[in-house]
């Protein structure tokens, strides 16, 4: 048994495998199928100040080795999260990372300060990278100025470990990552979905109601891996790798590229056991390679 424990900016994890925002709800459904206590951390669905109904259907479609989604941040809102979902999650003792999405800087502040008072929440992940909303989301994360605005506001509102989740839909990811760091981020997580589109040629209609949507799954893994590597090279902050991770082998690539932890997203839909199997597979690999501690694998690309 290798040592899989990890500490990222004060956030203590028994292993570095988390489930990604929006792919795991608030854990209720999956708790019937997997033991949530085995996960490194649970990242909640994006929480907004007010409840959001989300976008009109159709919201998802499969594409080669991936899927497009335009959910539009459907969630019950901050109040219900604290009253109903958080108490449920707290039962499992697995660190909860609250993913927050504001439409404005002020909303981000409110979300951060309110959630920081909750003992069960161990870190915040700031979603400035959602491609499926009119206001906020990727608007912030696609410009250094927008990134700075939000991250500064959240930093001022919380003492918790602050994870900033970046969008891949930018020209230079390292520029945004640097800005996030300078504005007070403790950790960078990436990537959110890649903007994409699908058309039904028979009807000439878009497959997704809002036409443009976010691509996830194995199709985006090479993009995610490249960006994780670039960010890990360019700034001295821990990085959480996300994008197309289906199994331990995929996850290991991210550690080698420089990630200190990973998140499993779309794979949960394909195999509800994907996160657990990934943890087991990482262990096996480390034992086989004679590596005693996962930390010894981070950023070890042989060039």
């Amino acid at each position, binding site marked *: 048994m290798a040592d899989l424990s990890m500490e990222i900016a004060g956030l203590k994890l028994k292993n570095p495998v988390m489930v990604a925002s*929006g*792919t*795991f*709800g608030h854990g209720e*459904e*999956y708790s*019937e*199928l997997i033991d949530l206590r085995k996960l490194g951390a649970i990242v909640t*669905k994006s929480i907004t100040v007010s409840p959001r*109904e*989300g976008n*009109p*259907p*159709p*919201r*998802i*479609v*499969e594409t*080669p*080795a*991936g*899927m497009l*989604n335009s*959910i539009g941040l*459907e969630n019950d809102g901050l109040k219900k999260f604290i009253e109903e979902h958080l108490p449920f999650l707290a039962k499992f003792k697995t660190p909860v990372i609250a993913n927050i999405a504001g439409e404005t800087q002020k909303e981000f502040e409110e979300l951060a300060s309110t959630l920081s008072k909750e003992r069960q929440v161990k870190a915040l992940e700031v979603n400035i990278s959602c491609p499926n909303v009119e206001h906020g989301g990727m608007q912030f994360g696609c410009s250094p100025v927008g990134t700075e605005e939000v991250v500064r506001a959240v930093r001022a509102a919380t003492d918790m470990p602050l994870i900033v989740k970046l969008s891949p839909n930018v020209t230079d990811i390292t520029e945004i990552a640097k800005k996030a760091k300078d504005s007070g981020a403790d950790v960078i997580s990436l990537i959110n979905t890649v903007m994409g589109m699908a058309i039904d040629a028979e009807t000439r209609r878009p497959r997704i109601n809002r036409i443009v949507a976010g691509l996830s*799954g*194995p199709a985006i893994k090479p993009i995610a891996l490249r960006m994780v590597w670039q960010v890990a090279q360019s700034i001295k902050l821990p990085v959480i790798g996300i994008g197309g991770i*289906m199994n331990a082998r995929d996850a290991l690539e991210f550690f080698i590229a420089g990630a200190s932890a990973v998140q499993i997203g*779309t794979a*949960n*839909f*394909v*195999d*509800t*056991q994907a996160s657990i199997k990934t943890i087991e597979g990482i262990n096996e690999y480390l034992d086989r390679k004679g590596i005693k501690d996962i930390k010894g694998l981070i950023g070890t690309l042989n060039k």
Partner: protein
Amino acid sequence: MHSDLKYGKMNLMIQEKARIVEHQQIAPNYYKLTLLSHYISSNTLPGQFIEIRVCDFTVCPLLRRPFSIHGTNKDKKTIEILYEVVGLGTEVLTKHQIGQELDILGPLGNGFTIKKKGKIAILVSGGMGVAPLKALAEHIKAPARYVFMGCKKMDQVVCEKDFSKLGFEVQVATENGSAGKKGLVTDILNGFIDSAQPSELNEINIYACGPKAMLKAVSEIAQQKKLNCQISMEAYMACGIGACKGCAVKTTKGMKMVCKDGPVFPAQEIIWPI
């Protein structure tokens, strides 16, 4: 007070490998798949479905595909799926042979609510919509039982015998007239309602499954005549358990998830077009 059999979600879901014990083509493009599943075969309510991972060593197709539970056999511990080949996922599914295993997730969703009140039960199916309705038919005790089936053409008319054995009167409509009445299944439904006595209308419970256009038409008929009607909806799905919010449908009670809140809904709750 009549207590309806409210088939809410009272059974837990599982993910497991299920062995294929039968797999045969029953009509052009239509297949019947029988899987061994101790748990699901005895813990399923009519109208629930499973998600099948059609191929577990590749990422294309990626997502699980949802299929209604067509029948269960508690003695043999099996469940039956009836499916139509419409694209890559269902095409890949046809390649699996007896003895092989499939990764399945279920039982999922809420089933039909079987109404105790009302002497006339009408099942309305369009195409593959027949799949969950056969499972439902086995539970219906109303004295007068009808199945109205709409199909494109004759060779897609399946399960007639299953319904007759269960004491249902089967009426068929095909779009090209190759079997039964030429026309749509809603023509049969309208005909039945028009010739019914006003007192009989209160006795009718409709249970429908099929393409969206058909469900919309059936819902409109039910609404006009104030008939009790439940419809089983379809939506593109990813997780199948209510976590991803992908399979949304607009209802009078807000956005609902077809996988978790449905797939069966009271017809009057759906806001068309969807």
